């Protein structure tokens, strides 16, 4: 399979605190990479560096063979290709679900509004929220909001999707409805980088799991090996912190 994303030696510091320390990651088209690690290990910062919401101090991100330049005036053209879903949903509160979904396709992709709406309705139906199309975000539950946020990112038909702890703010009973949508996307062959604390989900969805700690990749592997035969002591400890025995 073709390589779609190549991250080379990115580093990031906040004053004296090293958040990312020369991280490398290659992602192939259609691959689902799940990133796990303790809180504050730099997972989220890592995702935000990919679409240049954070500027890296060193290293580069290469998408489709082109280096992403954070100074580029046409950075928004690059961001179009990278979908992102946030922990706190960040739907636009003054717009209805449907308006949230068609804003970027109409304004950025210059898509015909009728067509954009048709596509939005098709995707809403797929995630079971067709009946909510004219509701405002405040009228939805957290799980519903997050499903809309996923659809909003899909509307741009991105080459790669970044999911940043998308279930961390949800009540437990809503986690599943969101993760099922993600599993569905994985089956469809979407390229995704997922940061999550839901280890059973990581195991189910990932082609490859990456463990980050202290701003570095400590270990990575296929889910079965990763969870059942961790090679490093740090990963063993991390995995153990999720079990009660």
């Amino acid at each position, binding site marked *: 399979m073709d390589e779609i994303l190549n991250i080379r030696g990115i580093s990031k510091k906040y004053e004296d605190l090293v958040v990312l320390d020369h991280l490398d990651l290659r992602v192939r088209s259609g691959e689902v990479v799940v990133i796990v690690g303790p809180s504050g290990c730099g997972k989220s910062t890592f995702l935000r560096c990919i679409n240049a*919401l954070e500027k890296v101090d060193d290293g580069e991100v290469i998408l489709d063979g082109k280096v992403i330049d954070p100074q580029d005036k046409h950075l*928004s053209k690059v*961001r179009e290709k990278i979908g992102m879903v*946030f922990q*706190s949903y960040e739907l636009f509160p003054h717009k209805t679900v449907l308006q949230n979904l068609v*804003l970027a396709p109409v304004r950025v992709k210059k898509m015909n509004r009728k067509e954009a709406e048709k596509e939005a309705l098709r995707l809403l139906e797929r995630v079971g929220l067709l009946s909510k199309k004219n509701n405002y975000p405040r009228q939805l539950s957290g799980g519903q909001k997050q499903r809309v946020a996923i659809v909003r990112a899909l509307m741009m038909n991105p080459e790669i999707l970044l999911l940043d702890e998308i279930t961390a703010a949800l009540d437990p009973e809503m986690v599943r409805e969101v993760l099922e949508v993600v599993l569905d996307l994985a089956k469809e062959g979407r390229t995704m980088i997922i940061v999550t604390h839901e280890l059973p989900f990581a195991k189910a969805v990932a082609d490859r799991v990456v463990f980050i700690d202290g701003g570095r990749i400590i270990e990575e592997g296929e889910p079965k090996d990763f969870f059942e035969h961790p090679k490093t002591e740090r990963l063993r400890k991390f995995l153990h912190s999720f079990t009660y025995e």
Partner: protein
Amino acid sequence: MGFELLLKGNNLGRLFGGLAVALKISLLSVCISLILGTVLGSLMNDRHPLIKGVLRGYLEIVRLMPQLVLLFLAYFGTTRVLGINISAETASVFVFSFWGTAEMSDLVRGALSGIPAAQYESSMALGLNDVQTLVFVILPQIIRRMLPLSINLITRMIKTTSLIMMIGIVEVLKVGQQIIEANRKIDPNAAFGIYFTVFVLYFAVCWPISKLSKYLEKKWEA
């Protein structure tokens, strides 16, 4: 009770004329305040400590100083010291705008800082550029937060125009006073009827505005 005086001569018409003067001054001031307040308000979150400090100081001064003192200062004070001779109406518009701009800038600042950084980020992550993010995502939210509050400011301004008669402008309250004075001998009870009418006029103007603000608040924040 004094109401009969309203029908005498052109008294009622004169009261309406006075009201028009008050409305003209407040609406002109509101427009100026809206524009300048938006500019200053977006600067108030500036990182530069000097800009921030000056704007904070300005807001504090305007809040603490009675509008009447500002009116006297602008109208009587400047004439001799600065040698400029501005009309009472100009002085009023100046003072009301000076006051309104400060209040409005604080509203804009509050509305701006109430929008989470992630709203900008999620918009940009979708591929919207800076201008599109501002126009389609941020500004509509700011306007929704601010409009009910700025409408409130408008009613406060209209009410406060009752002070401008102190610098010689014949607005609705002054007209009322004149009618009462002129008829003191024939109708000693004039004060009640006329001032009550003035009250009703203020109410008739401010009440719908206040209702509109309530309506918008409900519509957008429910």
